[in-house]
């Protein structure tokens, strides 16, 4: 028996874009990507802007065509359009027909799936409720905010009960409440046994939701695994937020603090925490919060990007 079939299987996928006069030069947007997303898992696709996340997703959705390589979703090659009945897709910064209402646009998309009129109408109503657009369903999309369009996008992606859901930056443009709702929806999809692949550059989203993540930088997959394995989550120091009024300017600590009104924020090694707290207490400061400083994905990316650049310049210098 061979390996069990993954929900999404990508093999040596590459994409080059021609550019320049006469399109003679080529820019590599994605290089030899091989990975798989298992059935029923939530997979986060991480990377800075322009890393190749959207390119990969667009290749999977057949919006663009690969220069090399293949991919399969639910065991079917990606150029088999019939497979699209089992997948849902939220494009990055989605935009829909602005002359339609949310209800009309969902009804329009639902018509491409083989649903009866009653089923269609019930699902559209349920989706509008799920994404919190029930009360705005009769307003034309031209009057919608970015966050509301994102919700419409999410609704159309899961409208037809897909087995695999691909979301390109699903949290972008949403307020904290909206982000939480999207997180809840992703977790619900996971509970229902669906496979979710979503791209993001926010580590906290990935940490909270993903079974596994893949990190892509400069068009290349740099790491794949559980979020905790990928980034060393050990605290790198402490951050104290405190209020200090009056003439307490003699504290040497204040020199390295960031001030906003009477509030100060200071970062220090964990070993200095208690002595600093004592000093602040003696000076009459009111401690508002003490938090661990953890490495952000941004820093992790910066590290990867810098490594990437260093390697590129090394190749240039050696002339190979």
């Amino acid at each position, binding site marked *: 028996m061979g390996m069990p079939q993954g929900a999404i299987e990508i093999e040596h996928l590459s994409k080059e874009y021609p550019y320049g006069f006469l399109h003679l030069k080529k820019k590599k947007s994605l290089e030899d990507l091989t990975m798989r997303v298992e059935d029923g898992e939530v997979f986060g696709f991480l990377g800075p802007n322009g890393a190749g996340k959207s390119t990969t997703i*667009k290749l999977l959705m057949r919006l663009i065509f690969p220069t090399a390589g293949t991919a399969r979703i639910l065991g079917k090659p990606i150029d088999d*359009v019939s497979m699209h*009945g089992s997948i*849902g*897709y939220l*494009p990055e910064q*989605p*935009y829909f027909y602005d002359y339609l209402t949310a209800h009309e646009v969902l009804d329009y*998309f639902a018509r*491409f799936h083989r649903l009866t009129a009653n089923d269609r109408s019930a699902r559209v109503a349920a989706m509008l409720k799920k994404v919190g657009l029930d009360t705005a369903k009769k307003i034309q999309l031209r009057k919608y905010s970015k966050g509301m369009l994102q919700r419409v996008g999410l609704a159309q992606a899961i409208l037809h009960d897909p087995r695999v859901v691909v979301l390109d930056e699903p949290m972008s443009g949403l307020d904290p409440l909206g982000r939480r709702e999207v997180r809840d929806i992703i977790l619900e999809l996971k509970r229902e046994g669906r496979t979710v692949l979503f791209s993001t550059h926010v580590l906290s989203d990935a940490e909270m939701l993903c079974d596994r993540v893949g990190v892509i930088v400069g068009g290349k997959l740099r790491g794949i695994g559980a979020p905790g394995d990928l980034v060393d989550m050990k605290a790198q120091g402490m951050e104290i937020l405190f209020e200090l009024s009056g003439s307490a300017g003699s504290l040497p600590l204040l020199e390295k603090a960031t001030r906003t009104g009477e509030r100060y924020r200071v970062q220090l090694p964990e070993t200095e925490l208690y002595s600093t707290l004592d000093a602040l207490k003696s000076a009459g400061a009111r401690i508002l919060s003490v938090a661990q400083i953890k490495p952000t994905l941004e820093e992790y990316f910066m590290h990867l990007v810098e490594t990437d650049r260093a390697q590129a310049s090394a190749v240039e210098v050696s002339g190979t």
Partner: protein
Amino acid sequence: MRNIRTVAANTFREAVRDRVLYNLVFFALLMMGAAILVGQISIGIEQDVIVSLGLTAISVIGILIAVFLGVALVSKEMDKRTLYALLAKPVKRWEFLLGKFFGLVMTLTVNTAAMAAGLYLALWTVKHPLLKSDAYILVAVYLILLKLAVIVALALLFSCFTTPFLAILFSAGIYVAGLFAADLRTVKGVDLDSGSLRLMRGISYLLPNFQNFNVMGAVVHGRGVPGVFVWQATLYALVYIAIILTGAAVVFSRRNLK
């Protein structure tokens, strides 16, 4: 078929909601003005003036809509990325294209029918009752509609591989060239070698011959149009549209969406 119908219905709805049919107000005003003016200044040629003005307006307004909306059909969806979510549904790209084509043809049919009704109304105000021969106007309107469908197909093809601006230029250019397609075939007295003449003749057969849809001269003077002419024009339009749309589908099926 169902997917094509769904896209077509939405395209029609878009055109209506984007107030495309507002051009009818302009047409109505033009016809009313013409009817009033003709009644005052022309004696005995009211019919000629009203019919030729009406048919010309139907044609020009239709061509403008066919070219500009025809080009926008696909380019707007690509530009605004409304196409992304749609193509992730079980919809083939050629189904989307055909849906767009039929949606705009449906819009043009409603628009042209309304303008034809306006033309008859204007005609009725200058002479009543209407005669049996006035029914020939409908034949002219039908042929204009066929011409518009060919233009939509061309605009759609160009918008599949070039920018909207160039697609409009190409569509308009082909339309103008197509008006002279028949002349290119019979060109005489020009100092050209036989190779160039053959090339010119070849190009003339590739171009859509828009004179195949022009019966205005006969209709304005109340003369009939032979049935065989109408059938041939219909067949010509259908074959030409089928070829153009096949080309558009081939190009669009490999197009990378940015």
